[in-house]
């Protein structure tokens, strides 16, 4: 049975984490969340438990630390002074579960709106109980203390201009609201508000069985839906301790990497639109559309593919897939060449992006930033190399790193990662093994339709799987994969039934966005816009 790696008393928690950080190098806080055991059949004495997930400096080990809170005292010391990422992690836990973090600098809701009453992820909150929001909050309650802490007096603040960038703004590529304090065009203070696309992913998970959740994962990072499918399915399969077939692994690698390419294409294309380079958008979107046609042929959907199943895949590759794929890859290569020929040696582009929107290594680690945004700072953390899965260790590819952590590095890292993904896909296609795509386990995989209609065992099997779903053994587990934006983790608590007791997604762009106000401080508005685009914030992912 999978359990948390450490269970500590609440009063020892901070000291334990501090020790792990200082002595064992656990300097990346991946996620903070809680579990409400109110409806659990074991009925533990304490209703709420907090879970902290950390990763060490080699990036190979992760650890989950759990602590049960006394029922009459739902509070604990904040660790936001140890990790920058804890700031939003704890805010979300407060918002969703109502657990207070003592000493937190800004403990207020982050996903739900300010008029919301109650805490939706508590088990006694009814899922359909919506609450109307009549007006958007002013955010001055955050802005004034922020500016005061920077030494602005009351009179100074009257000279400052406040501006909302978002939530409906073309530069936000979604639904981010940045409330900025300006002196001229320079941002002196920035408050980021999210939650405008909060769609209750985690609560929905608690009401659906494992295979039904896969469509919800599509809509996390909708630019690379299949990578989310893979991340979630892999976490569940690891809990079930099943090994999917080699063919399924290879297909997941191929289609996953193709998704990574489409994700990076969208990010870079949109980023260059924000810089005024519309031609790049046309160049880069054309092969993307071709890739969507391929997805459409393979999975039935262009964008939200729902391609994996627990234990395998929905469909095998179709006849002629290899040619179609090669066609797409060639187009991607051509488009990248075209786009880069416009920008790579373009002085305007370089001046516009170099040394702009710099993320330092320290902030990246402290803020829990992963993926291309982290690699652009020069840290070579890529789960495909450090914690290889699906034979990634047998493919010949490079981890792309930058040197400055600026917008230029992030764009170029994404371009180069597409090149590496193409390399991986070509190698995987060469080695693609035959055989089945699904594990041979009737308790997990739906029977063939001819069995369902032909014999009673098949019919019963289908019935059980539809009614109960795949039953996952009791326990709790954190599984992660390298998605397009970084480490995409799923922390799953199972009570042994076909419906997860709790699912927490660790969305890479949530933590990247939490660090964003720090990154854009003292930069120009126009730079903040391209910084935002270069970090690829996907609303479906950070808001869930």
């Amino acid at each position, binding site marked *: 049975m999978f359990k948390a790696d450490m269970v500590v008393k609440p009063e020892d928690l901070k000291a334990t984490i501090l020790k792990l950080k200082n002595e064992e190098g656990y300097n990346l806080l991946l996620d903070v969340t809680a579990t409400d055991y109110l409806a659990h059949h074991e009925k533990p004495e304490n209703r709420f438990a907090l879970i902290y997930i950390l990763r060490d400096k080699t990036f190979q080990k992760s650890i989950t630390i759990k602590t049960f809170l006394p029922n009459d005292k739902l509070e604990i010391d904040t660790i936001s002074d140890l990790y920058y990422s804890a700031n939003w992690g704890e805010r979300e836990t407060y918002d969703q579960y109502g657990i207070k973090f003592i000493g937190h600098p800004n403990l207020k809701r982050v996903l739900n709106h300010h008029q919301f009453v109650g805490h939706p992820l508590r088990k006694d909150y009814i899922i359909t109980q*919506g609450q109307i929001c009549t007006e958007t909050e002013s955010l001055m309650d955050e802005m004034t203390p922020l500016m005061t802490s920077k030494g602005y007096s009351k009179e100074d603040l009257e000279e400052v201009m406040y501006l909302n960038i978002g*939530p409906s703004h073309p530069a936000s590529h979604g639904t981010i609201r940045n409330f900025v304090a300006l002196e001229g065009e320079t941002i002196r203070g920035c408050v980021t508000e999210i939650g405008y696309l909060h769609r209750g992913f985690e609560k929905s998970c608690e009401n659906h069985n494992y295979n039904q959740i896969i469509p919800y994962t599509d809509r996390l990072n909708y630019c690379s839906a299949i990578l989310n499918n893979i991340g979630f399915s892999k976490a569940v399969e690891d809990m079930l301790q099943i090994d999917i077939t080699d063919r399924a692994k290879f297909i997941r690698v191929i289609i996953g990497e193709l998704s990574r390419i489409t994700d990076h294409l969208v990010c870079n294309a949109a980023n260059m639109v924000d810089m005024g380079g519309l031609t790049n958008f046309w160049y880069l979107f054309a092969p993307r559309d071709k890739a969507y046609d391929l997805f459409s042929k393979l999975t039935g959907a*262009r964008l939200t593919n729902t391609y994996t199943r627990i234990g395998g895949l929905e469909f095998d590759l179709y006849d002629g897939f290899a040619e179609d794929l090669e066609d797409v890859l060639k187009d991607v290569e051509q488009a990248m060449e075209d786009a880069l020929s416009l920008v790579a040696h373009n002085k305007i582009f370089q001046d516009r992006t170099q040394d702009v929107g710099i993320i330092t290594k320290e902030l990246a680690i402290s803020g829990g930033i992963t993926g291309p945004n982290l690699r652009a700072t020069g840290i070579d953390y890529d789960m495909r190399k450090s914690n290889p899965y699906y034979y990634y260790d047998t493919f010949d590819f490079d981890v792309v790193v930058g040197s400055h952590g600026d917008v230029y590095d992030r764009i170029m890292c994404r371009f180069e990662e597409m090149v590496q993904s193409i390399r991986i896909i070509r190698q995987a296609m060469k080695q693609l093994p035959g055989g089945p795509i699904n594990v041979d386990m009737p308790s997990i995989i739906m029977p063939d339709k001819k069995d369902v209609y032909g014999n009673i065992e098949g019919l019963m099997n289908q019935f059980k799987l539809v009614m109960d779903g795949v039953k996952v053994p009791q326990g709790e587990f954190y599984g992660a994969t390298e998605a397009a934006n970084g480490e995409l983790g799923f922390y799953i608590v199972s009570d042994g039934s076909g419906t997860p007791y709790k699912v927490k997604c660790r969305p890479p762009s949530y933590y990247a966005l939490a660090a964003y106000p720090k990154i854009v401080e003292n930069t120009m508005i126009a730079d903040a816009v391209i910084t935002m685009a270069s970090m690829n914030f996907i609303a479906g992912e950070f808001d869930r």
Partner: protein
Amino acid sequence: MGLGVEAVFGDSVVTTKLDKAVNWGRSYSLWPMAFGTACCGIEFMSAAAAKHDISRFGAEVVRFSPRQADLMIVAGTISYKQAPVLKKIYDQMCEPKWVISMGACASSGGFYDNYTTLQGIDEIIPVDEYISGCPPRPEAIFDAIIKIQEKAQSDSIVKDRITDFKGILDV
């Protein structure tokens, strides 16, 4: 004019109804305000990009300022937190204005039947066309645009189109 029509018509006068002439202009130069929040927003980008090319329908001038647009395309899930923003932007658009609700979420909440998601934008603002799909294909967006073009043909230039709508945020 240089089209050669003056040679055919000479000094003669062409008469038409003002409604007809204005509607003709309006329907084939709809300026969309893309209220893209989620996955549908990405598909709207596909519709605008080279392959599907929304400009074939005269609607390529995507404005992000509501005051310059007359066709609102709500592409994506609208949460209760987003709802007042959507209403504010709709109110800022000048008459005449049309609304397309793109995709399952905007039309009905989709499969997000939960505490945070508005169960259809028609609880907030009036909608002219609904597009099914999650997300809809670009072709479906064009279908809705063509429907709006047809609707716009029979409008009056002096009367507001919708006057009796009352949503949950209207007090």
